[in-house]
């Protein structure tokens, strides 16, 4: 019994690392640019397809393709921010919500059109490997994904707290007007933040590929999880999103273990509804908006 619980917790933590990359992206964009990116999951999907095609045409290992998917998505993100998102920033919610929503709809259906609904998988030499510690089973591919995800999250935190650009980003997120007065160019900061958030989504895509299938709707799985984690971890808070994502991963995994294989999603929704009912400002107790 204890072993089953421990195994479920380990599985949950490992996948929670991937959720963290997606949620940190969502919370970074929300914190800095002040919009919710409904298309974040679709960028995970794009990262997965990039990784899949690099592997099947050039035999590039998914871990190496991190160095391609991340820069590609960074540039894509900066361009999207500069040419699309920038035009709808302002007090009005409607265009912001529905622009990123349209983007999500577009990317999802375009990939359905181009790549069909088939599941694509990548099989690497470490895909089926696992460590056995005691009675516990730890997949190598998932462990690598978790470690890289934690390293990337840590690197982002260090970037936000030590570099000038990172500090400018935090300043712009806390007091945009004052930041402009201090000589910070908000457009540049926003483009970098959006690009970094998408690069994290791309990294999540590459890291997932050795043990997860790519298909056009795959992003929906992750984005919903990320939204819940971001509310739970207090909007705009990077550490909060990280901790909440790991919790969500564990909760989902325990749900699958003890309630039934198809109840992972139900656990997620239940968590969202309980969060809204009892802690609408997140576990940290910050303010909504």
């Amino acid at each position, binding site marked *: 019994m204890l072993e089953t619980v421990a195994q479920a917790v380990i599985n949950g933590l490992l996948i929670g690392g991937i959720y963290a990359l997606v949620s940190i992206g969502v919370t970074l964009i929300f914190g800095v640019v002040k919009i919710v990116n409904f298309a974040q999951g679709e960028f995970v999907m794009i990262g997965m397809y990039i990784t899949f095609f690099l592997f099947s045409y050039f035999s590039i290992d998914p871990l190496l393709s991190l160095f391609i998917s991340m820069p590609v998505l960074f540039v894509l993100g900066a361009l999207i921010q500069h040419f*699309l998102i920038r035009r709808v920033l302002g007090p009005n*919610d*409607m265009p912001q*919500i529905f622009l990123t929503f349209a983007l999500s709809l*577009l990317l999802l*259906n375009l*990939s359905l*059109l181009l790549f*069909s609904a088939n599941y694509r998988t990548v099989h690497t030499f470490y895909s089926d490997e696992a460590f056995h510690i005691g009675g516990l089973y730890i997949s190598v591919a998932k462990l690598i994904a978790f470690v890289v995800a934690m390293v990337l999250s840590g690197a982002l935190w260090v970037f936000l707290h030590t570099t000038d650009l990172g500090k400018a980003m935090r300043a712009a997120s806390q007091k945009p007007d004052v930041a402009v007065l201090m000589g910070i160019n908000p457009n540049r900061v926003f483009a970098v933040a959006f690009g970094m958030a998408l690069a994290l989504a791309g990294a999540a895509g590459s890291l997932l590929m050795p043990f997860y299938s790519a298909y056009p709707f795959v992003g929906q799985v992750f984005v919903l999880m990320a939204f819940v984690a971001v509310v739970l971890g207090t909007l705009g808070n990077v550490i909060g999103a990280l901790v909440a994502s790991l919790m969500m991963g564990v909760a989902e995994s325990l749900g699958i273990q003890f309630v039934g294989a198809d109840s992972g999603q139900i656990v997620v*929704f239940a968590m969202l509804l309980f969060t809204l009912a009892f802690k609408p400002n997140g576990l940290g107790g910050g303010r909504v908006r």
Partner: protein
Amino acid sequence: MMQGSSLKIAGLVVLAIVLIALPQVVKSSFAIDIFIRILLFSFIGAAWNLMGGYAKQLSLGHAAYFGLGAYTSTIMQIDFGISPWIGMAAGGVVAAIASLPIGWLCFRLRGPYFTIATIATAQALMLIFLKFRDFAWGAEGTTIPNLGSSPLMMQFETKASYYYVVLGLLALALFITHKIEQSWMGYYLVAIGEDEDAAGAIGVNAPRIKRDIYMISAFLTALAGTFYTQYIYFIDPATAFSFNISIEAALVSIVGGIGTLWGPVVGTVLLETTSALLQSWLGSTTGGIQLTVYALILTAVILWRPTGLMGFANEVLQRRRERQQAPSRARTAP
């Protein structure tokens, strides 16, 4: 002013005559099917627009009420033999009641997070209906028993009859919208949509108004669910709680112009006609093309005409009126 309103009434009468005569003139069942889709989604859009358009509470979870309406009337019909006409009203009531706890949860958040919460509630309801196969047939769904021609059970031999039913629903929704637009509630809704905190500060009871409009919107959306199930003779959680219903409800209103009486209708005509044309050109097998085009239209509207087609039309009319007035003003100037 008098002239303008009598012109409007004349226009409405002509439109009504055309719409009533349409299925008598056009006999192709393919065409009538498209008309029915246009009327149905105009109706759903109009229901969404009451809350999403006027009060700017941007829900993407209206499939919850569509599905509740569909399931209520179907369960009443199959298990108890009650006519879907009664089931339709009951479904509306169930949806309106369900909107209370759902609204209580979702209205705790604002803006985009309200939208996400509504998506989650609709998905959660779908999961519930998938899980509990004892009272709602689970994932396989069920077909509606075909009784041949039985108007009392909302089953008709000709598509034209379905057309008139949904035309009536749309007329009801537009009438309600018009009444609300002209009442105090309409002004409260717009005030909440503009700035909820400011509206609260000048004495608008925002939580109550939002709750009430959500109930009305949910009630109407549920009627569409019953109609649709009767029309296609089939129900399962994936169609009844389809995310596409939620998307289309919002989309037609935004493309047409949110917070306007005719916006959802104009938007639906554009989107559904485009989708029908695409299908006849490319065949129905090309998955994804319809929503790809919808997404492009939505992006274009948001970037260039955030007020939608109705806003665009009003701008053009305004400009023309100004141009007509400008020369006369020039002449009277000394």
